[in-house]
């Protein structure tokens, strides 16, 4: 029995093949998309914070950059600590801008300005902002903006590879303090010490009990918002996995019952159980691999479309990396093999003696 027979069997039951192919494509496509988009959001935000400092200071017990509120007066104290090379304050917020309901706003201390690459103009002074390239386009490149009821002048447009920045607005810290009613969301610190900065972290922590000091890396690792994103993306993927499993299992077991005679004759002719089981499983795996390729191409297409959807302001972004492809490949094998096990077992259980006509 050769592999070509499996392809003939698949072609013979076109509807079954198409149904399994479609449901697996949807399953794998949703896992591709949900995982790459949530990974994209996490890595964009991580990169943004990591680029600005290896130590992060947030409000004690508030492990969220949006809700954190740190007293700016602590900045001068921390700056004096040995090992602190550079410290900047940041307010992270979101506000309506002109007609757009929500735009990311960053209030930053002056020493952070130079990291934004200007396409034109200059860094903002009081009452001014610089605008990320993609949001500038969305706003029709207008020179004056209303951000949460206050008027601002656009002093320049910058470019960033990070979607949250390229789709955001940068203003001096003082302006953001007024809009968001806090002195700072967080401090980002560049230390002289490249690797082990635990002692430095302890020293900074000693400055006040109202702050939490962590390495940016460990902060991001335990960042609650990320965990929520990761967990929900995993839950959705897992549900998609189960749906795929149920789809392939039920469609295949129905067809195995319809193909009773076919498996019965195979058994009567002495084709081994191992071959019959692999026959059924390989049918599933072959459809699964076709669905895997389809889902990969389709998801990439959707991600490109998302990238070019202006209304998303560049905040949603995802790329399918090698590891995702690899793990989805094994997921495909798992779904198809697990999903075909029950149908394969049913095929095995068919009694070839039923082919002999009874009562004649």
């Amino acid at each position, binding site marked *: 029995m050769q592999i070509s027979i499996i392809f003939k069997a698949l072609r013979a039951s076109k509807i079954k093949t198409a149904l399994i192919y479609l449901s697996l494509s949807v399953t794998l496509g949703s896992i591709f998309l949900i995982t790459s988009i949530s990974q994209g959001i996490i890595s964009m935000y991580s990169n943004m914070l990591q680029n600005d400092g290896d130590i992060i200071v947030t409000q004690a017990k508030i492990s969220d950059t949006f809700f954190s509120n740190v007293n700016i007066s602590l900045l001068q104290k921390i700056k004096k600590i040995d090992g602190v090379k550079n410290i900047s304050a940041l307010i992270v917020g979101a506000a309506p801008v002109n007609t757009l309901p929500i735009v990311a706003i960053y209030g930053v201390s002056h020493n952070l300005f130079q990291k934004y690459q200007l396409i034109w103009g200059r860094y903002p002074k009081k009452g001014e902002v610089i605008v990320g390239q993609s949001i500038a386009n969305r706003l029709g490149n207008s020179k004056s903006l209303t951000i949460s009821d206050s008027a601002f002048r656009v002093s320049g447009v910058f470019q960033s590879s990070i979607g949250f920045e390229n789709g955001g607005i940068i203003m001096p810290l003082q302006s953001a303090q007024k809009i968001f009613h806090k002195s700072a969301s967080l401090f980002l610190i560049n230390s002289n010490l490249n690797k082990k900065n635990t002692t430095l972290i302890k020293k900074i922590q000693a400055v006040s009990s109202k702050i939490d000091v962590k390495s940016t890396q460990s902060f991001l690792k335990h960042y609650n918002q990320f965990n929520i994103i990761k967990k929900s993306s995993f839950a959705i993927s897992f549900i998609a996995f189960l749906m795929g499993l149920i789809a392939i299992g039920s469609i295949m077991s129905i067809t195995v019952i319809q193909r009773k005679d076919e498996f019965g004759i195979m058994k009567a002719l*002495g084709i081994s159980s191992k071959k019959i089981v692999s026959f059924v499983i390989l049918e599933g795996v072959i459809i699964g691999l076709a669905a895997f390729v389809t889902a990969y191409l389709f998801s990439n297409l959707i991600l490109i479309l998302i990238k070019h959807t202006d209304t998303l302001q560049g905040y949603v972004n995802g790329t399918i990396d090698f590891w995702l492809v690899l793990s989805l490949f094994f997921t495909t094998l798992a779904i198809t093999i697990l999903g075909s096990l029950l149908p394969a077992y049913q095929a095995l259980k068919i009694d070839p003696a039923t082919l002999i*006509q*009874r009562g*004649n």
Partner: protein
Amino acid sequence: MLHAENITHIYGNEEVLHNVSLSLKKSSLTAIIGESGSGKSTLLSILSTLLQPTSGVVSILETNIKNIQNIDTFRNNNIGFVFQFHYLINYLNVIDNITLAMNHKDNTYLKSLLIKLGIENIANKYPYEISGGQKQRVAIARALINKPKIIFADEPTGNLDSKNSKNVFDLFKNITQTEDVTVVVATHDLQNAQSANIIYEMNDGHISNYN
């Protein structure tokens, strides 16, 4: 080459075979006749290893079939089947159907079989493209492809007209000599059964020699 001793078979609580014993001679054509429901098919299933008897011993090629380690391989190597409903796989052409369980690569033998059975010019056709008589000849080729020692045929002519039925029996008679194979046919086609070397009659689960 096949011995069955005191075969009894019970379905549920109905005993359908009572102490059936018989022996088959090498390279002979044996017919088992009898009315519908007399137990022919049950007996054939048991003799061909597809069904375990409630009691009794079946030995094929001097081996008690209970002691055969791998029954699938044993069937594949030694036993061929022809059923009333040919059970050809519809999505496979004639060649693929015949070679479905082929355990060797002797294509000259395959070719000679096609010619012998007069199906060489339909080799690439599909089961739904050929006649009933042709289908049964394809099924016989499938039964012969692994050069089995014994072929079991259950009502092989049940769906054929008299001309095709005669052809099938002639073919069975012929292959017992040319292929050196033992053939057992369960049938209620008394007329064609006459061409068999040995005829048994089943009557309500009892077996006896006919005539």
